[in-house]
């Protein structure tokens, strides 16, 4: 249960303290902490069922928590109206199918809903923001394409653009790279990094430890609903931690000054 503090830190945008979630007498989260600062990418890692997605959903108020406090941009999360929260925090869900063959532009424009009154249509400004979001993730050439006719990589980027169109301060992404080829995985991770550089803050659930170590400023490793380790990638993805969290052996080395880890073999 160790964490470390990075010096010269900007103000935190998201503070979650002692988050506990119970479901049907099962303790899914047993007191998880997170402090996200502006411009930072935090990776949530851990075995299947360790509580990563649940933690994101607890932050978003999708599921009730038993204990713990959540502060977003200096205010208690409960003090936010749902639409107000939607403007500050965007969520990239694991579920990534769009049911109807609407156009890419229309799908990205869904991100503007929190800014609109119930009967309001997209204004010119909305469309400009939508277009900017599409350009950021390089899908603007697909604007008129039906979303059901996209490849997996394109679809993930379009959904990412949808989240950007909400102009959030904080981006919570649940396994955004799952099911993508290496090119699209790297592309998406670089996009996430780029968003952090432009002043947004990101919490991303990842299974790929190599990428987590490379692209995240800090990692939080969960095991059975509790934080096993948190801090810099070099600290978190140590052999001892990975053995305990996943039951695997991993090879780690430094390459060009970056800490790299490769999951190697099953131990237990």
């Amino acid at each position: 249960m160790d964490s470390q503090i990075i010096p010269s830190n900007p103000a935190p945008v998201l503070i979650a303290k002692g988050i506990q979630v119970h479901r049907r007498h099962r303790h899914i989260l047993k007191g998880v902490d997170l402090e996200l600062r502006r411009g930072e990418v935090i990776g949530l890692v851990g075995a299947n069922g360790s509580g990563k997605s649940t933690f994101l959903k607890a932050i978003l108020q999708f599921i009730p928590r038993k204990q713990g406090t959540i502060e977003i941009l200096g205010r208690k999360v409960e003090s936010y109206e749902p639409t107000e929260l939607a403007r500050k925090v965007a969520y990239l869900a694991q579920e990534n199918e769009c049911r109807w063959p609407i156009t890419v532009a229309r799908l990205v424009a869904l991100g503007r809903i929190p800014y609109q009154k119930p009967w309001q249509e997209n204004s010119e400004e909305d469309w400009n923001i939508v277009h900017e979001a599409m350009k950021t993730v390089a899908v603007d050439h697909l604007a008129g394409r039906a979303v059901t006719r996209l490849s997996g990589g394109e679809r993930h980027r379009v959904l990412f653009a949808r989240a950007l169109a909400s102009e959030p301060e904080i981006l919570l992404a649940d396994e955004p790279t799952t099911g993508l080829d290496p090119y699209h995985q790297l592309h998406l991770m670089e996009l996430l990094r780029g968003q952090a550089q432009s002043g947004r803050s990101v919490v991303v659930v990842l299974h790929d430890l190599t990428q987590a170590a490379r692209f995240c400023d800090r990692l939080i490793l969960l095991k059975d609903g509790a934080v096993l380790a948190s801090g810099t990638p070099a600290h978190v993805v140590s052999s001892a931690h990975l053995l305990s969290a996943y039951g695997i052996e991993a090879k780690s080395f430094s390459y060009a000054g970056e800490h790299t880890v490769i999951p190697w073999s099953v131990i237990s």
Partner: protein
Amino acid sequence: MQTETPLPSSEHPTHPAFNGDAIDRKSRCWPTVLLVLLAISFLFSMLVGSVFLTPQRLVEGVVFGQDSIVKLIFWEIRLPRALLGVFVGFSLGLTGAVMQGYMRNPLADPGVLGVSTGAAMGAVLMFYLGAANLFALALPLGGILGGFVIIVMVVTIAGREASVQTLILAGIAFSSLASSIISLVLNLSPNPHAAMDIVFWLMGSLSDRNLQHVWLTLPLMIPGWLLLLVSARALRALSLGEETAASLGFNLRRVRSMIILGSSLAVGPAIAVSGSIGFVGLIVPHVMRPLIGNDPARLLWVSGLAGAILLTWSDLAVRLISGTVEIKLGVITALVGAPFFFFLLFRMRKEAI
């Protein structure tokens, strides 16, 4: 005289090629077009029946009161029938679109939560109790009550945290229960005539209705329509799934309550007054979807209007085809509906190849 095609202009900072509105503008005219079509269909249905009227005769009879028979036909037969056709069709088309959007399932129909079968059961029980012969409004009243009883049971059993799947299952369960009660009533019929009455009622019809039927059902349907129309934006957000919709600021529990209440208010009275009319709520959203760019929010108005048009014309067909035996409305909608599904099937097969 220029025929040059505009190049994709992502290089241009002013991006004239990108126009999200272009899709919008095309689809925005449809409600108006459909409204005009509905008005024409409605007026036409004033003229057609066992007595054909010219517009001139209708105006003379109704407005200037020169022809008491025309006046009687208008107020007692044509107007109630046409109004009910529009209202029932609107309810079915609208609710079908809402259900397909909410459940994200193109096979959902207005009765998926059991309201239709419940309403049919309520009316059939009125037949059985003999109330149908005592006063004319017994059937629609029983139907409305039956629809509500079933939906309350569905919601109670499914629970407050019900997922869409749980709701569908509860709907199917109680639909089956209501169907079995209908079968039981048929089974216990004292004579074939009583059974035939019920069977014919179940096939759906708008004949022999009067303005009382309109006044009984309209005050329920209008709030139902409003509740359903208000959910439009939530349905749009739901095309990406419940979690994304919630992250966009929608309270999904409230959305669900509004949709369940709205659909019961719209569909229960509709079925109670017309009998079972299938396919309208299932087909209409499919036909309309391509016209409005598949947007589940825009689909609502156009589906309601198209449902009203379809039912008005189906009822016109009933009047034109029927000889000595009245062809039932539900039979016509099913006859129109089934081939349409073949068409959908062929289109899907073509796309799959």
